[in-house]
């Protein structure tokens, strides 16, 4: 029981960190190899704000998210979208370049030491019915769920969401009916980056971040998206919870040193059985 609760709460954190990747992958059909770095930058931005203003990190994550979104918008609009238009595989190389560039900037600014965000609830925990609950993870899960629901509503219930889904379904046709596809894609990327900033701040509160730490979070986020299914925001939440439980139970069985192997092994196994994801219906290739 303890394991399942721990797993679900870890999964909630994973949902918050994978949301940006899922959104970009689902609508832009682009895997952002720099997603891990977006998480890290978000955490460092929050950390800078905490040092400057001294308020609670999870409140300061909101301005950090806005800043990161504003930085991400021109990246998509003027660099990535033109590359996407030319060749479906080229953004992989481009976002790889972005990832390396961001990593080296973080190294230059903050050295390679890991850092975490101080918060009064970071290490606190309480007990319910004999189950220990870590407060920071509970908050992370709550925020993750709120983000998932918010994003889902944004995509399905608003005019903006309609434009996004139209552009994602058929960019040319969307352009013909008067949707500014380039601006819509850039907006999606900015929202994804903002979500990543919050996810990254949650990572820094619960664990820690470092300039090179984004890589394994990228793989975790990708695993979540693969389990949950391409382009499904709700699937991302399901995938994150499944991964969290599998990982926590797995660690209890084989030992904590194999924590990473469980995640990456699960990714490989799922890709083998269902290369297009666990819950996706049969798709055109």
């Amino acid at each position, binding site marked *: 029981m303890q394991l399942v609760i721990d797993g679900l709460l870890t999964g909630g954190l994973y949902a918050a960190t994978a949301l940006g990747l899922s959104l970009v992958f689902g609508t832009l059909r682009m895997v952002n190899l720099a997603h891990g770095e977006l998480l890290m930058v978000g955490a460092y931005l929050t950390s800078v704000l905490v040092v400057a203003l001294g308020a609670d990190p999870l409140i300061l994550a909101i301005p950090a998210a806005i800043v990161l979104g504003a930085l991400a918008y021109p990246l998509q609009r003027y660099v990535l979208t033109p590359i996407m238009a030319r060749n479906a595989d080229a953004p992989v*190389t481009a976002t790889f370049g972005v990832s390396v560039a961001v990593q*080296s900037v973080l190294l230059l600014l903050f050295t390679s030491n890991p850092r975490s965000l101080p918060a009064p609830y970071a290490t606190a925990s309480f007990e319910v019915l004999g189950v220990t609950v870590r407060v920071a993870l509970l908050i992370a899960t709550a925020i993750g769920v709120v983000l998932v629901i918010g994003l889902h509503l944004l995509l399905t219930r608003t005019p903006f969401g309609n434009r996004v889904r139209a552009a994602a379904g058929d960019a040319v046709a969307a352009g013909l009916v008067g949707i500014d596809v380039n601006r819509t894609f850039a907006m999606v990327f900015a929202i994804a980056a903002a979500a990543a900033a919050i996810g990254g701040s949650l990572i820094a509160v619960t664990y820690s971040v470092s300039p090179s730490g984004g890589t394994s979070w990228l*793989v975790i986020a*990708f695993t979540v998206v693969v389990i949950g299914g391409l382009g499904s925001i709700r699937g991302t939440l399901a995938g994150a919870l499944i991964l969290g439980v599998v990982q926590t139970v797995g660690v209890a069985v084989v030992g904590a040193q194999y924590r990473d192997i469980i995640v*990456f092994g699960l*990714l*490989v196994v799922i890709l083998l059985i269902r290369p297009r994801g666990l819950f996706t219906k049969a798709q055109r290739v």
Partner: protein
Amino acid sequence: MTNSLDSTPKTARAVDGSGPARRRSIAPAARYLIPLVLGVAAILLADALGRSIANQGTELLLLALLALSWNVIGGYGGLFSLGHQVFVGVGGYALIVILSYTDLPLPVVLIAAALLSAVTGMVLGYPMLRLRGPYFAIGTLGVALAVLAWMLNWPFTKASQSYPLPMSDSLGFTELFQLTIVIAVLALVAITALVSSPLGLRLVALRDDEHGAASLGVRRVRTLLPVWAVSGFLAGLVGALFALQQGSLTPASAFSIQFVLDAIVVCVIGGVGTLYGPLLGAVVVFALRQYTADFGEWAMLIEALVVILVVRLAPEGLWGILSRTIRAVRRGRQAGIAPQKEGRS
């Protein structure tokens, strides 16, 4: 009048035809001979070079070899691998472990280490090569991270501790440089042959139009697997030579993600999917690193920004720009002659 009308298309055809025809007759021999001649010259020269230059030469060639290896699958195959450090690590560890337990001669051990890396590649590749595009990229990254995590805990290879090369097997800087030259030349010749072989053509066909290639009977995994193994063999050699150069390995050094980052940066800057692009890229990146040696992160940042710029503005890379310029100059010269002829007639 009729005469001039007849002659114009003839000259045009002759001009069009002569370029490729001439290249076809001369280039193949030169493609194999030039690296061989340069290689022999470099080996002879290596004795005269100082130890530190020889060591730098080894580093440059290892960078070039790694990029050549990545380019086979990432450039010609169009599969963006983020897991080549597994090959490097397996090759390096295989060399050190085999040398520690046996007295086999070094060339045999080198080949055995590279073969082991290729076999590892085939075992991992058989499932991985079914994946496409970003799935392949992150799948291989996941495998690489899992292997690194495994190596950090594997008692047989001393887990996270340093695994030393037996003292009796260490090479001098000059010897190692010469050995690396031999391997680099052979690798370049092998890749030149591979690229123009039926297998290489099937590989490119698969990259450019998978459905078209499939309809002509090109099988995906069957085509990719041997190429992937060749790529793994070469990267395994890089790892083995790296182990000889370093004298000891840790999982963090041998399975470092830096290897695949280097390979991709070099290939993209030099020209992905071109024969000499990785070599040119290696020289450029290596030179850049010499100038920015005191601030490593700046070098990395500059390289990454160049990668983004290249992908955005000149996806064919430096080699592509260079050969396009040469072709334009050549065509310009021919164009300069052709109107004169027309004018006369």
